[in-house]
């Protein structure tokens, strides 16, 4: 079953922009209020590579895909990309929200999370690749 590409891109765009904005706001508040002490730069060094590459990809696709209104995309691939994105952003948020409940220092918690967030981000990017690749293939048919 097919879904309109434009609508799918908008859903993904809303998800990533909302999630990125929430994460940015949270880390901004934490670094401003001294949660990371002298290590605020470490928090930003963790956050920006965690969300910006994929968020940038979505925004670029949102504005640069020509004839998006006339194209369709496989529903399964859209759902896969959306759910993986949702789970990934949720995991990133939980890294920040759960840290106060543990005895781990804030920047240590961020560093430890890179172990699993890195491969996870790769998986999300792969799902995006399949999503956009499949779209182009369909539009050529």
């Amino acid at each position, binding site marked *: 079953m097919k879904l309109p590409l434009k609508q799918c891109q908008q859903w993904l765009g809303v998800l990533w922009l909302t999630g990125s904005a929430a994460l940015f706001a949270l880390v901004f*508040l934490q670094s401003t*209020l001294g949660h990371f002490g002298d290590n605020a730069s*470490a928090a930003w060094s963790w956050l920006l590579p965690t969300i910006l590459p994929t968020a940038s990809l979505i925004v670029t696709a949102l504005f640069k895909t020509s004839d998006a209104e006339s194209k369709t995309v496989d529903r399964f691939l859209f759902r896969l990309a959306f759910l993986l994105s949702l789970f990934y952003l949720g995991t990133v948020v939980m890294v920040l929200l759960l840290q106060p409940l*543990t*005895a*781990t220092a804030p920047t240590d918690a961020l560093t430890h999370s890179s172990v699993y967030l890195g491969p996870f981000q790769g998986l999300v990017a792969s799902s995006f690749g399949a999503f956009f690749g499949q779209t182009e293939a369909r539009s050529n048919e």
Partner: protein
Amino acid sequence: MFEKHAPLKTLGNLNDALISGLESTGYFDRSYYPVPDGFALATHLEQISADGASKAPPARWSAEAPRLEHFSLSDYVRALLTADPGYYRVVVFVVTDVPFAQSGAEPTMDQAQKWLGGGLNVLPASIASTPFSPNTVCTALIYEFTQSESRHPALLLPSPLDAHTHLVKSGLWNAFGGNP
């Protein structure tokens, strides 16, 4: 102070008074070191609040970074957004009639933790039987440490709290019969 334990005839009597006050406020672990004409008694490193009050066990005796003791939304939001440095304290009572000055060396928190295990478990009888002289003074040396994000534990020098506040907040001042 210690009037309720009078008469103090020997250093052993003063040690008994110290133990009584310490145990009534939860300090059951201690370690003794001989000093000229007296002894030093080191307490267990304890975690305290910023105001000097002892935390409730088990956090009190943990050197781990602090976490939320009792979950509440306001405490959680504060811990989420702001720094929550840990504060730690070791009290060393020095009982002697020999005047002394501090060396100026700043002990680390690791060293202070080891004071408990490095001394004697009881006051030696030879010291306990030493007569209590009018010049004998019991001095409380209070070492406060803080451990904030990204930093190693460091001695707070000077401590934002004075020694009297530390003793009052720990309950020791009252336990020793100090005037309010």
